[in-house]
């Protein structure tokens, strides 16, 4: 991991040193890391991080709830599936900016408008993950559940949901990515004065053509993404260990 990072930085520095592009267009790692270091020294950065993370987590939590309910309903109720199944992916492909007018219409310039965009971005992914999991539940387990007398909700809770967990988890991961990207866009929609956020910082850096700042913010986003992925990865590993899906052979 660390060697990979060092390698990337070295190549990057070499490209910059080669003078391929002027420094203000493609700044070197030194400039970027200095900028990043400055940011990390300012309390404002942590405020922004806090605001963005709070929104991300709230939005994601709502999306998980919505995704679960919608996914559960759509995956098991045939008419709903016929009516809504493909719509979910349709919604997923809708870019965030298309929702902005509606978001403002419903929620004015409040944080709810941001959350609206985030939820619309993430919930379809989560629902789709659940639906895929449900669809690939091994029939023999469904039969076993049926024989045990589990029906409808009980069957869902005790058999289908746990069987769908791996796929649901990967849906959650994708959902997080959607939520985050939507949030980065949404934070430009409602800029609450004097409340900095990562999305705004990203846009500001771009707006001001502040290349080191942009790259520093990208690094921040990347690191957050990596940390979140590690959490999901840990959950996933725990799941696989418990289910006996350890794959070492020979």
């Amino acid at each position, binding site marked *: 991991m660390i060697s990979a990072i060092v390698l990337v930085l070295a190549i990057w520095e070499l490209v910059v040193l080669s003078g391929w592009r002027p420094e203000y267009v493609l700044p070197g790692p030194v400039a970027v890391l200095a900028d990043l270091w400055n940011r990390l020294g300012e309390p404002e950065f942590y405020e922004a991080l806090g605001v963005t993370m709070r929104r991300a987590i709230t939005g994601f939590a709502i999306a998980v709830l919505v995704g679960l309910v919608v996914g559960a309903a759509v995956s098991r109720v045939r008419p709903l599936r016929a009516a809504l199944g493909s719509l979910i992916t349709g919604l997923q492909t809708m870019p965030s900016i298309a929702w902005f007018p509606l978001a*403002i219409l419903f929620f004015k310039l409040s944080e709810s408008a941001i959350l609206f965009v985030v939820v619309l971005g993430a919930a379809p992914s989560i629902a789709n993950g659940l639906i895929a999991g449900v669809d690939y539940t091994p029939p023999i387990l469904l039969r076993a559940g049926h024989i045990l007398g589990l029906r409808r909700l009980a069957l869902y809770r005790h058999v289908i949901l746990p069987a769908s967990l791996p796929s649901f988890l990967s849906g959650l991961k994708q959902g997080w990515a959607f939520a985050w990207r939507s949030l980065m866009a949404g934070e430009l929609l409602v800029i609450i004065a004097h409340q900095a956020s990562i999305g705004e910082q990203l846009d500001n850096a771009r707006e*001001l053509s502040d290349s080191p700042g942009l790259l520093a913010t990208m690094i921040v986003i990347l690191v957050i993404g990596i940390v979140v992925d590690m959490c999901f990865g840990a959950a996933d590993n725990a799941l696989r260990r418990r289910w006996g899906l350890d794959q070492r052979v020979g």
Partner: protein
Amino acid sequence: GGGGGSSGGDTAKTTEVRLGFFPNITHSTALVGVQKGFFAKALGSDTTLKVSTFNAGPAATEAIFSDAIDATYIGPNPAINAWAKSKGEAIKIVAGAASGGVFLVVKPEINSVEDLKGKKIATPQLGNTQDVALRYWLQEKGIKTDTKGGGEVSILPQENAQTLQTFATGDIDGAWVPEPFASRLIQESKGKILLTEADLWPNKQFVITHLIVRQQFLKDHPDLVKKLIEAHVESNAFIQSDPAGAKEAVNAELKELTGKPVAPAVLDSAFGNITFTNDPIASSLVGSADHAQKVGLLDPVDLNGIYDLKILNEVLAAKSQPAVSDK
């Protein structure tokens, strides 16, 4: 509904005025007014000012349409669009804010209009004032262009930030852009001014920022609108009388809003190129719309009634300044 925006038109007491603007040098009137507390002072203690910032016109228009703000500083194009799309129901322009500060910046080797042939020139957005101005100007000079980047001069609408980059890397040969981007192109990428847009207009004046309000708000709370305009006028007066203090205020506010002040050299140069005026320069708005129609970027639109300068003129009269015209 937080804060009591009155959509119903009743006489509910408004205790909040919601004002929008962009963290941008052409919106210095707002930046200074907020930073120096002119708005807060004018509105008094029983009315609070709630400011929202936007990164572009559409969001501000959506907010005004959705009754999420009451007034905002905005450029001429979004104002025309808001007027046209709402068939004259949504907004009114109640004051001008800034004029000038738009340039055609090109690579040093380009010296004349003829040299532009075969080159790529950027504008901020298809159909916006600068885009229209460039197309109209080229049309006047007999140079063909089209809205899809073809023709003798290839016009590439792209965001100003991207223009900075593509100009630096040589992907484009010039750009018709407002401040502070013009100054940055010149200072950072050795661009040079081929044309000052002001030269194309009567009195070298054309609007780039003005203040619009929601019509319903204007109807319900003319008193509040008046207080806003008073602060607006005071802010512009401050900028004119104390440019150094104004610049300081602008950068302080920008630092608070975006985390980064503008480089002093860019700020100086940009400030020098922009005139902050209460006059909305109505003729340029109408003229620009007319040009847009001529280059095929706008359906005919009736701008009659887009201005409501009565309050502004009252305020100006009270300060014994000359009235402005909506023609």
